[in-house]
């Protein structure tokens, strides 16, 4: 049963990756990174169970944390560069 979950996760990750590659706007790419991060968290948790080593879950937690911070960082950067180009923001 767990292997089916792993395969499904890999399929969705490939989809998110393809969205990241061909996404027209920047926001598609950020969205794809966000989805990708969450799926990696799930993948690690399931792989941890598959190998019977439950101490993998710390890594899954770190993934979720890092994913959140990088998405916020990217958005913060993106707003910051908008301010600079437009001079003053609305």
């Amino acid at each position, binding site marked *: 049963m767990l292997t089916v979950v792993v395969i499904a996760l890999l399929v969705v*990750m490939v989809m998110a*990756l393809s969205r*990241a*590659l061909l996404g027209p706007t920047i926001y598609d790419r950020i969205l794809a990174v966000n989805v990708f991060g969450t799926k*990696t968290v799930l993948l690690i948790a399931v792989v941890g169970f598959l190998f019977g080593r439950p101490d*993998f879950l710390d890594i899954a937690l770190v993934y979720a944390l890092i994913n*959140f911070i*990088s998405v*916020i960082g990217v958005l913060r950067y993106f707003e910051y560069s908008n301010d600079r180009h437009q001079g003053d923001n609305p």
Partner: protein
Amino acid sequence: MLLLLAITALAIAWLRDLFAAVMLAGIYGLLSASFFVSVDAVDVAFTEAAVGAGIFPLLMLAALALVGRNEQTAYRRPLISLLLVSITGAALVLGTLDMPAFGSADAPPHNHVAVRYIEESPKEIGIPNMVTSVLADYRSFDTLGEVVVVFTAAMGVLGLLFTGRAASPGSATERANMYDHRVLRVVSKMLIPLILLFALYVQFHGEYGPGGGFQAGVIFAAGIILYAMLFGFGNAQRVVRPALLQILAACGVLIYGSVGVVCLLSGGNFLDYSQLLPDPLVGRHVGILVIELGVGITVASAMILIFYAFASATVNSEEVA
């Protein structure tokens, strides 16, 4: 898994827009970390996730904010370099033909040195996580060198970029987008204590599960950077002063070195913890714990200092530009 890695790498090569390249570098870091997990490299996956997918894109973005996003020049002489690259690639592939199969148990590296460490380390040092035991005890002198490397890197970045003028909390950019982060600020107020607590958890259970000084330091720094991003650099610098951080980075290295000297004084050679306490096993435990603490403090303060340096560079160049 590796196929995904290869695709991302090729995409990065092909992309022109730097911003997208940095995003893909983040995905690449995540992918390589999940590969490390599937190959049982637990600690390495931890560090690669925290560093490769966490701090690296943040630093690149901070640099991109200064340097501008688009890449003007076209490729230069692509064909010749493509030829050169494929020749070196072919030579390397030839080199791997007689390597042992992936994961074969009887390969040469496994049955000489590793066997001794796998058998002896639980008995000698008594902690389950062999990677930390080797890192902190057998090879602790190299780890000392590494901590010094991180410290000097932080000092180098400070020397290059940090002009000391902290961004005043009320400056234009701070107030400008203060209003639109209401939801983010509330959520991060809840999350940041959790993150810092998790960093301490990682720090102190490095012996029993994946974790240790480096990972804890990086997670701690990531928590502070999140705070700085959302609440503006002025307030962040008021909360965690750069001067305090410089002292902290130095005293992390100091803790590490002083443990070594204490072992020297109490009769053993440098960094041999069994001399610390009458009972050698407990002495080693204490030694490793203190070492990890020193490493954690240095790495955390070094990362935050580097981020402050980048942030203050953006603020200054904005006034200049």
